[in-house]
């Protein structure tokens, strides 16, 4: 056969709950029940409130850079619900707060983290989440490795989900994580939040491919594109992927098509590079609006409930901020104490004297007793 086709592939797109709150009942079968929908809506709303207050905190100078999740929350909550808390691991980026909260991360820790305190990543025992990851596109390999350990130890009913953006798929480590996961056939779910932008770079300049989902074809990895603002589609795709994963079917890829409604972070000004019309159009496709329309249409939600939720969300996030703010300041030498399980002698000396000069480390060199004294004496 001189000229023939040796491989074929296609990418499917899934939407179950459309922009107007209409549900495709057939596709929705065996996905979310109404209680779950309400629960996810609440999670999204609370997360949105956290965004708002964090933004204000940053603007008033009480917090550093913070990346809002606004507009993308359906990806986080829909997928997190399909994963099993306690069994599974999450290897996050930084724009899926609600997923982390649903899997046991105390909410105030994310604020603590963005306030420049590593203790915000010191998750309690049993919370299977790796730290938020600033270096883009490099953490997914850990998801492959953690899932590999699950396979190796024959852990039952366990999988790993890792989140990342459209921009992250350009990094070499994206390719590395996908290739290793598919070769080793480990239970990793690669969830790409394609929000169309990587800071100022639109998706069309990030990649030449029509979809992100097709990148998984390179690895013969099951892959799907879903409406990322549709909690049903997100849930369904993740549920399918997890089922495949725990049954030994290896990794899967999910592209959630979504949009970041806020600036990249509080350090960014998206109006420099984004058409306001584009933002407006996407604001209408906000997952919160859509989910609320659905809930109202099936009679499980009304204005009163909405009001109550908003008040509750307000209360919760204020408390979260208070908790974050009232955490005692870290010891000044905190950053030494976790360098290794056991700190080498020389590092201990650096820590105990907060000095690197030889005389500082050994003040006896100039006949002094302690560094503090040395300063007093000479300054």
């Amino acid at each position: 056969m001189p000229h023939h086709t040796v491989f074929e592939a296609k990418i499917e797109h899934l939407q179950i709950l459309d922009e107007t709150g209409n549900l495709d009942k057939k596709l929705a079968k065996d996905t979310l029940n109404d209680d779950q929908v309400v629960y996810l809506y609440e999670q999204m709303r609370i997360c949105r409130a956290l965004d708002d207050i964090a933004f204000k905190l940053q603007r008033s100078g009480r917090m550093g850079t913070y990346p809002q999740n606004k507009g993308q929350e359906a990806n986080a909550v829909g997928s997190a619900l399909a994963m099993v808390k306690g069994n599974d691991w999450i290897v996050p980026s930084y724009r899926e707060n609600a997923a982390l909260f649903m899997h046991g991360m105390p909410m105030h820790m994310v604020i603590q983290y963005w306030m420049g305190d590593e203790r915000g990543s010191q998750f309690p025992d049993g919370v299977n989440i790796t730290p938020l990851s600033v270096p883009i596109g490099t953490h997914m390999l850990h998801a492959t490795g953690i899932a590999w350990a699950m396979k190796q130890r024959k852990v039952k009913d366990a999988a790993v989900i890792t989140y990342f953006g459209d921009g992250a798929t350009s990094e070499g480590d994206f390719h590395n994580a996908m290739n290793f996961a598919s070769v080793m056939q480990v239970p990793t779910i690669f969830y790409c939040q394609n929000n169309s932008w990587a800071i100022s770079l639109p998706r069309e300049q990030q990649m030449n491919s029509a979809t992100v989902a097709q990148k998984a074809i390179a690895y013969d990895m099951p892959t799907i594109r879903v409406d990322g603002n549709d909690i049903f589609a997100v849930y369904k795709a993740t549920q399918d992927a997890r089922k495949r994963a725990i049954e030994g079917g290896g990794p899967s890829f999910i592209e959630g098509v979504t949009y970041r409604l806020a600036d990249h972070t509080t350090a960014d000004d998206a109006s420099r590079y984004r058409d306001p019309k584009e933002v407006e159009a996407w604001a209408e496709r906000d997952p919160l609006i859509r989910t609320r329309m659905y809930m109202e249409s099936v009679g499980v939600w009304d204005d009163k409930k909405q009001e109550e939720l908003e008040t509750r969300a307000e209360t919760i996030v204020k408390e979260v901020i208070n908790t974050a703010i009232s955490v005692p300041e870290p010891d000044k030498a905190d950053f030494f104490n976790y360098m290794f399980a056991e700190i080498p002698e020389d590092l201990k000396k650096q820590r105990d004297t907060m000095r690197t000069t030889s005389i500082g480390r050994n003040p006896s060199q100039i006949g002094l007793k302690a560094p503090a004294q040395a300063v007093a004496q000479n300054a």
Partner: protein
Amino acid sequence: MAVQTLVGAITSTLDQALAADKDIIMLGEDIGLNGGVFRATDGLQAKHGKDRVVDTPLDESGIMGTAIGLAIAGMKSIPEIQFEGFLGPAYDQLVNHAARMRTRTRGAVTVPMTVRVPVGGGIHAPELHSDSPESIYAHSPGVKVLMPCTPYDAKGLLNSAIKDPDPVIFFEPKRVYRTFKEEVPDEYYEIPIGKAKVVSEGEDLTVVTWGATMFQALEAIDSLPEDVSVELIDLRSIYPFDMDTIAESVSKTGRCVIAHEAPLTCGMGAEIAARVMEECFLNLEAPVQRVAGFDTIMPYYKLENEYLPEAPRILQGITECLAY
């Protein structure tokens, strides 16, 4: 003559370079329409075109590797790496390709490339946005490493870097991007690579530093007693570095303090200290003191000032060295 900040001097130098040489191409993340996350390239795309100030995919190895290819083909590429922490993914291309190409081909293939990288701590940034990896590259043969800390020097050294026929890493101390302005000549000028600057002359002790730490050193020196006379040297060029100026100074003063943000162990301070001993052994009246970053990960910003070699620590280093 314009009064400019450090970042302003960089922008206008790049602007002039783009205008003067059609073979120059800039590439990096968000450097186009957005003007770079520090606005160092603000307006340059609009003025010089999308094909000359190029927004690239989010991929540092891709940026570095294609910048090498562009340079091999005779362009002068100026890649920007958004923060020094993201040199990590580009490390292999930089150290194992860019730095080796000329010697590997005995001069047949060369890489005239200037890698611009904001560097260092002190701006309350998230993780991996505050490191100081200069000694990694000083130890990697085949690249030149610069770190100016004033607008005037930034322009002169950036011009030299761009003109240089070999790969140069141009570190920009982000902490002082906008802290002060100074007069910067409008016309083109160069500052030679490999020459340190004697910022102030003195008799009792030599302080060697570079980057944002320069201003901590100045503050420390300011609070010394009147009768102590310190010679302050801005290294500026990390590799090659100007050992002659340092050795001459320490031979005169007999005492030396080196200050830098990077971790102590195997930092550039170690090299300078070792050389000072080698070259000024008989003149040294005290061991060289290094006021450096600790051998820890640069902490997130809540504690970054504890990590950084701030003025009080430099002052301690100086006073103790004098007391030896």
